[in-house]
């Protein structure tokens, strides 16, 4: 891209570093969170600069938006619940004595410097040529049933990782549920928001559009950037936005439907995988010619599970009622 690109990259790198240092040491926690969201957006830009549009899509939605919502939501709760002025709960306060603080800082700095030196050497000496697995992926693309490489890796070559990744989301939801069900203290009730005609109008316009976008992304995945993750994330973001404007969303679902949505992607993976194990001899080994269809089938359910899990995780803090419906054993 020539000198302009070089200067741009240099500036981007500098801003990333400045932001990251600022966000750790800025005294107000709220500022730190805002800086973190800014960092996420700049990371999205960096992914595009490094030819990773799929990652940019995921980062912009998850890394910046959803993580940001989580942090801000929690900060809001903490400051309001404790009825403490922000200066106390947010700011950098120390409960420990000076020598201990210094000792901690020095020890941490020592560890970090000891690790930084070899890491910088690695960056300096890392090979500048070498195509990694690109040739191997290109050579095998014809048999994958899709034309987009990242989708091929996620849902064919390393489809097992994707099953495990859905399992990570599932475990996180289960952990959140455990935390809620085991919680003996009384939960603060959410404050109902008054209906807002402007928001409602906006929603009637935006909702169909966002649903269409998420479906389109899913379909797009088989030949260009997009796919189950991006689609699931957009779907989740839509529902979360809807919920933030005061609409009731996920809590309207019957409990069994909610649980079914959370496992449908996983069970579909397992049913397909087990069928392939019997037919073809290896877990998730797609038969010749069937790969494209099976991948689409897996992606549709996976995106539903991803969307439900993300919404549950993000709204879990603000909509505790969602978790109060896990039945007791017989």
């Amino acid at each position, binding site marked *: 891209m020539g000198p302009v690109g070089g200067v741009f990259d240099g500036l981007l790198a500098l801003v990333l570093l400045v932001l990251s240092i600022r966000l750790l040491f800025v005294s107000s926690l709220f500022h730190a969170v805002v800086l973190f969201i800014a960092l996420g957006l700049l990371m999205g830009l960096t992914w595009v600069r490094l030819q990773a549009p799929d990652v940019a899509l995921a980062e912009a939605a998850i890394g910046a938006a959803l993580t940001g919502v989580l942090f801000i939501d929690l900060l809001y709760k903490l400051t309001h619940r404790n009825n403490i002025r922000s200066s106390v709960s947010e700011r950098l306060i120390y409960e420990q004595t000076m020598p201990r603080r210094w000792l901690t800082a020095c020890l941490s700095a020592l560890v970090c410097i000891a690790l930084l030196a070899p890491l910088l050497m690695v960056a300096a000496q890392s090979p500048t040529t*070498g195509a990694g697995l690109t040739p191997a992926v290109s050579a095998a693309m014809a048999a994958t049933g899709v034309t987009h490489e990242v989708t091929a890796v996620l849902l064919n070559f390393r489809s097992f990782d994707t099953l495990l990744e859905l*399992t990570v989301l599932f475990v996180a939801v289960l952990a959140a549920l455990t935390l809620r069900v085991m919680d003996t203290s009384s939960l603060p009730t959410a404050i109902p928001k008054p209906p807002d005609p402007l928001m409602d109008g906006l929603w009637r316009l935006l909702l169909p559009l966002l649903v269409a976008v998420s479906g389109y992304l899913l379909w797009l995945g088989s030949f260009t950037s997009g796919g189950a993750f991006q689609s699931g994330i957009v779907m989740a973001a839509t529902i979360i936005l809807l919920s933030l404007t005061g609409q009731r969303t996920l809590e309207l679902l019957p409990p069994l439907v909610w649980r079914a949505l959370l496992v449908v992607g996983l069970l579909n993976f397992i049913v397909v995988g087990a069928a392939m194990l019997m037919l073809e001899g*290896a877990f998730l080994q797609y038969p010749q010619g069937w790969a494209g269809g099976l991948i689409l089938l897996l992606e549709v359910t996976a995106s539903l599970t991803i969307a439900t899990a993300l919404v549950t995780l993000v709204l879990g803090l603000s909509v505790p009622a969602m978790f109060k419906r896990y*039945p007791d054993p017989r």
Partner: protein
Amino acid sequence: MISVLIVLPLTAAFLVFLWPRQATFIGLSASAATVILTAICVTSVYLSGPMHTLLGGWSPPLGIRLAIDGLSALMLSMMALVGGLLSLFAPGYFKRSHDKPATITLFWPLWLLLWGTLNGLFMAADIFTLYVLMEISLLAAVALVTLSPSQVATMAALRYLLVTTTGSLLYLMGVAILYDAYGVLDMVLLAEEVQSGWALTTALLLMTIGLMTKAALFPLHFWLPPAHALSPVPVSAILSALFVKGAFYLLLRLWSALGEQAASAEFSLVIAMLAVAAIVWGSVQALRQRHLKMLIAYSTVAQVGFFFLAFPALANSHHTGPDIDPGLAGSAIQVVAHALAKASLFLAAGILLLARHSDRLSAMRGMARSLPVTAAALALAGLGLYGPPGSGAGLGKSLLGQALHGGEHGWWEPLLTFAGLLTITYVLSMLRYIVLPYRGSLTMTPVSLWLQAIPLVLALCGLGLGWFEPLLIELLQVQSGGTE
């Protein structure tokens, strides 16, 4: 076929989540099926050599390979034996303890997820898949700790989550560096590709620190005692007996695959010193505890030190040929013996909690008379931790000693003896309460004999392991020859 060892417990976990009312039925059936399947796989490895499968039908470097050799088979058997007995214990325990009724419906899916992913850790050969598996097991473990509603336990859970996540990220950075330098993720392919240099050294350093955090080697052990001691008893047993072993096993695998090219002599010396420090620190702290569960948790810190003696043993051995390295074998057998003894101790502590509603050491007074079966289990499991000759831990220790012997470091032998003495000291300081008479009136809730028998069986298995020496060595000899 072997992929089912991961997928079956996971599927059961999803089904329990879908139908929580059937939790115990689904959970017990899945446990039984997993135990049977593990037995079939291990027998097959023993009789006809290593097994492997290519997930998705793609061979590495594109695909992910699962493989079982002798060492994996031994670890899988440990999972099945301890896991199976724990699955029998847990429903009975939760029914009698004063936990919420929902506890059991949450325990089952989390425990099954942990079982499946630990099985995966012992089989997967792809370093990135291993990362994802570690994260699942970590989140499940944290959730299991929060099954205890106390606020201190929640704090322990957060600390646990943050520490082990940092460990995971250090590991993941190592993965990124290895992929950057060699372009493959499969451990066998990596072993063929690696050359000594900054990339390899740094990656191994980061991965080792990361995994040491997860395995709780001194001085990175600080998160372990509260997390292990404050969770409900079956969870403590799972974490201490099984979960810690995953990270240690992975470290052993990484170093035997990639370690030859790195500066392993210096590294092993550092590890040896940390291991010794862990043994001393863990034992001394165990001696100072007034609660049985806390004592058992600190004993895990000390025992982890014993496992890590495998690294100096491996570096010390000039062992060549098809036989298994005695250091590796000794360490593996010790890991299994510890799993059995530790599970037994924690479950026995659970019975004490059920009977006396306290796990203070003083609550153990009069146990020999009032809870003879559990008292016997505690005594035998304590013995199993120390490892007299002929027991499982004894066999592991003698193999380790054999491997450490003959090197240039002559100070190993007295050191091992000293460590053994420390172990027996804290075990005896705990056991003396069993025979001390109880002063005052003894209030006891009766506990069914069936529940009490489980820790006893575990302790006996740990002691009896030594008898199977030829069988164990023969199983461990089964080594895979590379990618097919």
